């Protein structure tokens, strides 16, 4: 399958400011996270893929077309912006029907799609209320609905959980998961929240200072490591002393003893130290990586 979205040496400079530099990555079917802190170049990348700006160098391709050369590729592309972008005086139903037509759907089909998509985002009961009366969570769902109403192949979501309370965030992440994994609509999710990526994405592209720092499946970043975590309720110092005496590199982080590069010999040493001291074991588990580690440890390549 050819990639849905392809950046090849994609570069964008604003005068002397480098927004994006030689970025090369692909987005395939499924949910791909575009992760990076503010100013990393995420919004610039989205604008380039939407064809709203031209690259300084390199190329961006969306669904096989160069978006800054033709607008036709946008018929199968959806976009949910981070900022407020909804009219307040019309109902969600009217607004979505109009947006479906602006995406090229005939009026009768636009009406059916509107009803379907409002049901999927959980707003079918509220469809005849003015958007101005909606809560932040509901408005966010309308924003997602307008990006999906024309049944795109790929949808670009820009910080979709921004401004939501924990409940609203859960609902939005659930919707994104369903859209990407059940509806069959691929997603590129731009966010600075690693939790959002861990919850929804299959792959991640990490941007830092306008460059691709890392790229790969999310599972690769969150798989089990060789670091062993030993959490005991008491005897911390005694257990640590015995481990060190047996040549096991051990550091203490609060209640947890951290053992790097743990193999069978280190596990035997832990067993013996616990037996000898009589320390009460609460948890013994390998450390699983998180996306936070990417930024803590710096780029390492995958």
């Amino acid at each position, binding site marked *: 399958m050819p990639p849905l979205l392809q950046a090849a040496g994609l570069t964008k400079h604003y005068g002397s400011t480098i927004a994006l530099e030689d970025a090369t990555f692909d987005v395939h079917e499924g949910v791909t996270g575009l992760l990076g802190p503010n100013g990393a170049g995420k919004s610039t990348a989205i604008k380039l893929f939407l064809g709203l700006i031209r690259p300084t160098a390199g190329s961006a391709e969306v669904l096989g077309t160069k978006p800054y050369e033709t607008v036709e590729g946008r018929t199968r592309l959806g976009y949910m912006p981070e900022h407020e972008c909804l009219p307040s005086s019309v109902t969600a139903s009217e607004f979505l029907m109009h947006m479906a037509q602006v995406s090229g759907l005939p009026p009768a089909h636009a009406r059916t799609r509107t009803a379907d998509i409002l049901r999927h985002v959980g707003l079918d009961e509220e469809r005849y209320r003015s958007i101005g009366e909606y809560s932040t969570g509901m408005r966010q769902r309308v924003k997602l609905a307008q990006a999906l109403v*024309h049944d795109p192949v790929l949808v670009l979501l820009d910080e979709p959980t921004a401004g939501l309370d924990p409940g609203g965030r859960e609902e939005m992440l659930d919707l994104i998961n369903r859209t990407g994994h059940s509806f069959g609509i691929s997603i590129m999710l731009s966010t600075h929240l690693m939790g959002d990526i861990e919850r929804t994405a299959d792959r991640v592209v990490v941007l830092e200072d306008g460059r691709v720092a890392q790229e790969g499946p999310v599972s690769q970043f969150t798989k089990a490591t060789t670091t062993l975590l030993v959490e005991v309720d008491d005897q911390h110092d005694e257990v640590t002393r015995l481990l060190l005496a047996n040549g096991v590199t051990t550091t203490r982080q609060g209640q947890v003893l951290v053992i790097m590069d743990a193999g069978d010999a280190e596990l035997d040493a832990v067993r013996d130290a616990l037996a000898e001291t009589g320390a009460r074991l609460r948890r013994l588990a390998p450390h699983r990586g998180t996306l936070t580690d990417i930024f803590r440890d710096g780029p390492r390549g995958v």
Partner: protein
Amino acid sequence: MDPVASDLPVTSSPQGEVFDLGYQRYDGPREGRSRARKAIYWDGVKLVLGIGRGPKAKILPLLLFISTMFPAVVFVIILSFVGEGENFLPGPADYNGIISFLLILFGAIMAPELFTPDRKDRVLDLYLVRPITSTDYALARVAAFMSIVLVLVYSGQIVLQVGLILTAVEPWEYIKENWEDTPRFMAAGFLMAMFITVIPMAVATFMTRRAYASAFVIGLFMVGTFVVNGLTSESCDAEARSEGGRIKLEAVDCEPVTGDAAKYIALLSLIDTSLAVNYLVFDKEDDDPSPAMLASRELHDAIPIGAYGLYTLIPLAVIWWQYRRTRI
């Protein structure tokens, strides 16, 4: 026992089942850019006429529609009493001038509605990521407003034409003698509608609040016309004459207060320039011209036409440029 429940039919087996089909992919037609343009056009028309919105949104367009028709209806009623041949009533050439104030008011109030809310609420960002260009969006909105202004301009003229024909002693003779009025009012109406549309819409591209745009447009038309007519008005010397033993003062050697420059200053009045072009289309002269129109008669016909061209093409270019440089 619940009386309602007891009335319900009792069934031994389920009568139907509800299935959730889940998400259905869309495999219907996709009409691309042409559908997008049509959607924006019709949305613009509905927005101006208040269709699909509360009763309040319909009051202003309805009032303005009635007001632009009203003079035509009154003239036809008078004609039906006094009959053909009475020349004191305004004709098709004068009609656009009579309703010009209403049209400007309509343009100033309603035209910004098509641009400013989309900019203010940032809905424009959602349009520009769909299969249209910013020029498609702007032109569809301009076309929507111009269509409504055309309906306003033409409807009064049509009522007047029908009235003139029906009240004529020989209707068929009247049509044969005055057939040119129809293409003329169509052409003049088109030019007037263009003018009423593009200037307020160009102003609206700079504003995010409709009220500011409306106030600016009203100021531009009204204050401009007032000042220009002041500058082009005539001052005269007074000459004393004795008449039947009484001394009377008579105005002589009248000339505009700004002298020779008056004829060019007159072009700065947007309303008077558009009306000057209107009378050129009808190949007639206004019987009761404003000072600015009187002054501009000194000029070759091509000059007011050129000025009108600038007053419509420049705002169109401004609209195009403003949307071309729009970034989300």
